[in-house]
């Protein structure tokens, strides 16, 4: 975890680190919350040619500072956009292959990158009924994924209670064999570090640590054994510029509390 003196919150760190993964010229399908904010941040920092899609039906969003939408379905999503279209049609662009990166938050993830946003406990008798997939299942099924989420042991579990949005399912070729021939988990960004997936086993691997975080700390906050990339690097801390642009975008700390 960042030290007491750290001049940024965990959510801000998450937004900055996520934004750095997006490259200019990509087409990114962003979910609400940190993904929407991080994609907008990337657009302002280093990706003026980044095209943002929202499942509410927006192509080429350019969200205004201080005007963050409460979901991806309100008129704020369409400001200065290139196009509005039906929700079904924008989701079909994923299936058609026009999207480079899907970018979502997550409530619970497992070692193969499967995401659960439906049920804690069994579907028949859940301890908690969660809000559900929305477009999450579609995005995760059809394109390469980046997930941004808080790194907590209860969120990083060996096996999710329910696969809402598929990662690599049970690892190996299981995703492909299930009929999901495109996409898959690419990166998981957390407030502790950066994670990826082994090319063969498809298990989650720690790729980098954020400043001031140890590998032991990441493991302690993960509910399964986490292999570590050789020569584990440390990410560069958020710069003044990144933070100032981020705070300009979300002055009310709607997504970065």
């Amino acid at each position, binding site marked *: 975890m960042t030290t007491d003196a750290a001049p940024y919150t965990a959510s801000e760190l998450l937004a900055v680190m996520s934004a750095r993964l997006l490259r200019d010229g990509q087409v990114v399908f962003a979910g*609400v*919350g940190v993904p929407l904010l991080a994609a907008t941040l990337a657009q302002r920092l280093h990706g003026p040619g980044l095209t943002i899609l929202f*499942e*509410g*039906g*927006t192509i080429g969003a350019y969200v205004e500072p201080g005007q963050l939408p*409460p*979901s991806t*379905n*309100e*008129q*704020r*999503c*369409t*400001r*200065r956009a290139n196009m*509005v*279209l*039906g*929700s*079904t049609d924008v*989701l*079909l662009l*994923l*299936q058609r292959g026009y999207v480079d990166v899907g970018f979502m938050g997550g409530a619970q993830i497992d070692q193969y990158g499967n995401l659960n946003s*439906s049920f804690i406990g069994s*579907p028949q008798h*859940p301890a*908690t*009924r*969660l*809000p*559900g*997939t*929305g*477009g*999450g*299942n*579609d995005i995760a*099924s*059809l394109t390469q994924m980046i997930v941004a989420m808080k790194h907590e042991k209860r969120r990083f579990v060996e096996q999710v209670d*329910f*696969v*809402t*949005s*598929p990662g690599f*399912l049970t690892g190996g070729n*299981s*995703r492909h064999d*299930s*009929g*999901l*021939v*495109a996409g898959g988990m690419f990166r998981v960004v957390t407030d502790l570090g950066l994670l990826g997936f082994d090319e063969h086993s498809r298990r989650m691997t720690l790729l980098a640590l954020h400043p001031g975080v140890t590998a032991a700390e990441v493991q302690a906050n993960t509910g399964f054994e986490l292999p570590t990339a050789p020569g584990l690097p440390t990410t560069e801390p958020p710069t003044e510029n990144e933070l100032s642009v981020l705070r300009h975008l979300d002055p009310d700390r*709607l997504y970065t509390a």
Partner: protein
Amino acid sequence: MPLAYNEISRRTRERDRSLREKVMSLDEAAALVPDGAWVGIGGSTLSRTPMAMVWALIRARRRDLVCARGISSSEGELLFAAGVSRHLITSWFSLGIVWGVSRIMRAYTESNRARFEEWSHMAMGMRFRAGAMAVPFLPMRSMLGSDVIAQLPEAKAIDCPFTGEKLVLVPALNPDFALIHVQRCDAYGNAQIDGLPFMDLDLALAANQVILTTERIVSNDQIRRRPDHTKIPFFAVEAVVEAPFGCAPHECYGVYEPLFDHLDRYAAALKPDAEQGIRDYLDHYFFEPKSWTEYLDRIGLPDLLDAARRGKSIYDD
């Protein structure tokens, strides 16, 4: 099960599809919808929600409506809590991410008092599209391998007869009624939608009958000046109701944004005891007012004006 084609055709044939004026009151429109009807709800999350019609159906004490919407928000909470619906087919259901997981959705589904039938967002769209096309299903490539499809006996994973690839077939959804709110329409029901259309074009054609609420009723000449803006044809429409601020406290594109302060107060009122909180809310805003105007009066001019200023600002740039 999707409706048989001859049933869909028969229903359409038997409706009066002539060019006729259909303007009526909220109460009259609510009376068209019987208990147990399947009702598609237009808009998405906090956008173009047909709140005035939801308000009228709740006041009419409708029961056992099976409701379907791409993404559901507080209208779904109110339909559950008022006892109007015990079955919502949707992809996501909570007030909105900034307010956390819906306590009403949790209370009703976890106690099995109501059902939240979860399909992916695209699956909801493909189901309405299949309904609009009058085909029993459409194929798609998501939901494979997930537990979402495992909960849905109606969705079928198949091997494509042409390519051998795995595909998911989702069944058509042909609701008895579609409730859709628009910026403007004429007395015949030619409806123009500004901004995000969501799934409303498919929903309108999938449904047997469309009940339109509209910010304003304009002349047919106005419609004919911009036919490219007309998204729903009159012959699909059964009722036209003028309901200004008809989505409040949700948004209507270019007219008003969500009433954020009102939604914050609603969420706060549900915090200590969600079920008591929403009962009080229903009493105050749904059952006690004598008219839609009085509902708006209780919401209050400051919130409405603020939302309208923000809503119209999209055209200021």
